[in-house]
């Protein structure tokens, strides 16, 4: 607790700002629409009966579910982070808040924590629906084609949940990245468009990484190396193929990906705070 007449950096204030951010996101239609769409797509995967090819159907449902989580989660991360942060500046609600004894870092971290909580809710619900759908379908397949399950269940449920956790981390990195961009952007549209472009670059970053490793020397190698260092490699979070194939995620791989994501998260958040502290509102 601060001494009278002093103000210390406060996790409590970050929590209050995060709570408001969650409330705003939940009361906006976009979150509900994306959540219902994603959950509906995952739940509807088992209704695609013409794709019924026995136990392989579980792989299809898993792939389909992972695709829905990734697609809608990415949209939610970019749009929600840009909207909830930039709207505070555009609508000048940040003026009233920052005229209180609030550090700008608390404002940025509060906004991020709120968006991360919204993303956790999204990933939690959609992964939960996916696990439920897989479980029900596997139960019915175990009854109809028991010989396919002689060596036990085919779905690695723990790995499905681990996939969800890794995606949440990836979405959080995307949200932090969007906050950096929104910190110096002049319009919300600019924040959203540039953020999606950067997300695309992050998905293709492994190409720069491979080029850098293959190049002997020179400017091209330096440029590729810088590109590979600045943008996170989102392929690090891409463990869906292994999980869909019924393989467990190696805990070392899981831990490495989590540490990689946490590092980029910390860097982007520090950058977002730095950019916003310099911004005149």
């Amino acid at each position, binding site marked *: 607790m601060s001494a009278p007449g002093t103000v210390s950096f406060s996790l409590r204030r970050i929590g209050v700002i995060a709570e408001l951010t969650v409330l*705003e996101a939940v009361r906006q239609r976009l979150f509900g629409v994306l959540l219902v769409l994603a959950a509906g797509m995952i739940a509807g995967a088992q209704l695609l009966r013409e794709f019924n090819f026995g136990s392989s159907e579980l792989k299809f449902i898993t792939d389909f579910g992972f695709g829905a989580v990734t697609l809608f989660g990415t949209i939610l991360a970019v749009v929600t982070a840009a909207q909830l942060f930039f709207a505070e500046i555009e609508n*000048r609600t940040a003026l*009233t808040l920052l*005229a*209180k004894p609030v550090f700008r870092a608390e404002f940025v971290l509060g906004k991020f924590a709120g968006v991360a909580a919204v993303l956790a809710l999204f990933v939690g619900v959609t992964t939960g629906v996916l696990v439920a759908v897989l479980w029900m379908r596997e139960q019915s397949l175990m009854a109809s084609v028991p010989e396919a399950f002689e060596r036990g269940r085919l779905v690695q449920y723990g790995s499905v949940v681990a996939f969800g956790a890794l995606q949440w981390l990836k979405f959080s990195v995307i949200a932090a990245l969007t906050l950096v961009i929104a910190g110096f952007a002049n319009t919300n549209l600019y924040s959203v468009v540039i953020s999606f472009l950067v997300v695309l670059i992050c998905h293709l970053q492994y190409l720069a990484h491979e080029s850098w490793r293959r190049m002997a020397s020179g400017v091209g190698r330096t440029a590729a190396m810088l590109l590979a260092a600045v943008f996170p490699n989102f392929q690090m979070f891409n463990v869906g193929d292994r999980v869909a194939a019924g393989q467990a995620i190696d805990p070392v791989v899981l831990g490495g990906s989590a540490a990689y994501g946490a590092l980029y998260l910390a860097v982007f958040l520090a950058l977002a705070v730095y950019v916003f502290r310099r911004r*005149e509102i």
Partner: protein
Amino acid sequence: MSAVPPPAISVEGLTKDFLLSVRGYRVRAVDDLTLQVPAGQVFGLLGPNGSGKSTTIKVVLGLIEPTLGRTAIFGVRSAEVRSRLNVGYLPENPNFHRFLSGRELVTFYARVCGVDRARLRDRVDEVIEWVGLKDAASRRLSTYSKGMLQRIGLAQAVVHDPRLLILDEPTAGVDPVGSAEIGELILRLKAQGKTVVLSSHLLAQVEDLCDRIAILNRGRLVLEGGVDDLVTEKGRDALIVRGLDASALGDLRGWLDGRGAELVAVEKPRTTLDRIFREHVAERMQAADAPTAPGPGTEGRPR
């Protein structure tokens, strides 16, 4: 010997330039401004649009950095977050989180300002009632009128009981009745010993409410002083007389001439349109708000 308490706000040599383009074009919003706001007074900050009032307020609140000069609140530099411990701020044309209800908004700001959890609810209800929004407290802000938004803005500004209130155009776009109500609230704050900085274009209201004023033009201070000193015409006196006929007026004129004084003008005292509007509209609004006779099926009072 006791130390002199610092002024509520001190501005020393403040200059603020805004960069207009990457080529380095700048516009000077505030130009070498120096002024002090004494504690416990209502201080009017006046000036035309673009005169630098809002920019000065933003620098004082630490929302933007000065190009040159220093500002402080109760002796604490504006750059320090703790300078805002004792400040409530109502921005110009306030835009709050429209998805919140009035009570949720005030509760949010109370929590941000660290109002004790044990008295949070009571304090929020207290300030909502103080601004006269008790019946609308549960409604979303998106349904509030402009005057209601200004009043809920005032509630969030005072919820942590600050010593200094900075109100930027608190009556902009508000009808005369709402404007008078906000004026009443400002006077009540003054009675509580608060310092109020009021930026406004409504000069009549500023004259009624403020102890001191500063007039800015093109970012420079052009006039500062006590309202009474500034508006009182020196060397003249006004007599308001009832029942004076033409012959008595002639006698009075001669009597004044005999004493070396001159009767400069004889005119009827005038009221203001603002006062007439408020009296008539407020009366009708009060009549409309008064309880009506109970309808069928309700428990009636004896008539």
